[in-house]
């Protein structure tokens, strides 16, 4: 499903990812850990085809990046720092817009809104929603086209326990989807992961498996 071999990515002179290799099979979860600036978001954006690798080989969903990026787009559910929602549109309008872009029947919008418990606030502009609600709508956006691969950057941020529980079947392990999960919650993330990747200043200090103590060491 995902195979990175010696992948590097620069921002100007700074190496954000340096010779990172990792592989992940269908239905598995890759837990990505590391302090701020370690390269986690860069990795996620690269897998989402939003960034090109500058060196190495990257295969996602059987497609080589960046050459076959167009085949990957539309098969990835990306939930990053930004909700990728227009604040001046309602939750429903945002999802309907994304449904049209992805060629998904607009009837599915109601189903995903119900799935994240936002049908009652569907007609509210996103700017009037709380952070947790925005996160729920963003989750609905990421799931709208039923992607086989989820790229999740702190997906439970801003969610109250009830909302987190509601979203668990959709984005948790029980969703059955292949997931790349960026999190600072070492214990929780480790419990969810089949493969772990520990990044420090762009380098893969831990790749494969690790215990919580080793992962906590990334933050020192």
């Amino acid at each position: 499903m995902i195979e990175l071999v010696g992948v590097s990515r620069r921002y100007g002179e700074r190496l954000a990812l340096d010779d990172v290799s990792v592989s992940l099979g269908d239905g598995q979860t890759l837990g990505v850990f590391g302090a701020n600036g370690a390269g986690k978001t860069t990795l996620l954006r690269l897998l989402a085809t939003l960034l090109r690798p500058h060196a190495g080989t990257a295969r996602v969903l059987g497609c080589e990046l960046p050459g076959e990026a167009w085949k990957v787009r539309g098969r990835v559910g990306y939930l990053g720092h930004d909700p990728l929602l227009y604040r001046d549109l309602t939750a429903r309008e945002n999802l309907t817009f994304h449904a049209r872009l992805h060629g998904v029947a607009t009837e599915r919008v109601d189903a995903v809104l119900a799935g994240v418990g936002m049908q009652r606030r569907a007609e509210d502009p996103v700017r009037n929603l709380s952070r947790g609600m925005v996160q729920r709508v963003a989750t609905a956006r990421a799931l709208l086209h039923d992607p086989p691969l989820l790229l999740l950057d702190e997906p439970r941020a801003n969610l109250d326990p009830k909302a987190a529980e509601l979203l668990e079947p959709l984005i948790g392990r029980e969703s059955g989807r292949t997931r790349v999960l960026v999190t600072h919650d070492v214990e929780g993330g480790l419990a969810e992961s089949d493969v772990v990747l520990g990044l420090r200043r762009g380098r893969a200090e831990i790749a494969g498996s690790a215990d919580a103590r080793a992962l906590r060491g990334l933050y020192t």
Partner: protein
Amino acid sequence: MTRAAAAILRKDLLIEVRTKQSVPAMALFSVTAFVLFHFGLDRDRLDGELASGVLWVTLLLATVLAVNRLFAHEREQGGLDGLLLAPIDRTAVFVAKAVALYLYLVLLELVAIPAYAILLLGPSPVDQLPALIAVLALANLGLATVGALVAALAAEARARDLLVPLLLLPLLTPVLIAAARATEPLFAVHPETGELGKWAGVLGLYDLVFVLLSVAVFDFLLED
């Protein structure tokens, strides 16, 4: 591509209707500029080449305002990644943005031309309206095409407020020249349409070149 372009256009127009950011600002700018020209030139009535030049410089500068805002919602609300993640031909983004800008220009001109006729223009443009509309339609296509291209180029740039006018105005100079020359006889005290065809042809050729160029390069502009 049509489906995606229509979806993006619909979204942009909905946000513009709701926020009223681009078109009212363009219209207000144009009317203010006419008032400033009135006092700056110390003239009540303009005709001929001066009338044509004042109109087109004003419309061109008003276009800069809209171009600066064309990707604002994507930039400020993270929507550009949303567009880039979608399985769409990225030319659809260009088409939607160019059509949106074209519509903004039409709405601007619906306000600015009558305002110009009332505030500054000497000869009434009513008799020359079909020819004037033809020139505006051709010039708008050039402004919208190049505007969408430059807006995409500057969308992620840090100094975009500087970059947009610095790139846009030189690129649009041929439109300004051709549109002003085409309009000049229409605003003359004794209107004629002698060279209208020639300058309309120049505008048409410019539009064609930049439409083709934009379609060819737009995909690369949005690449990382």
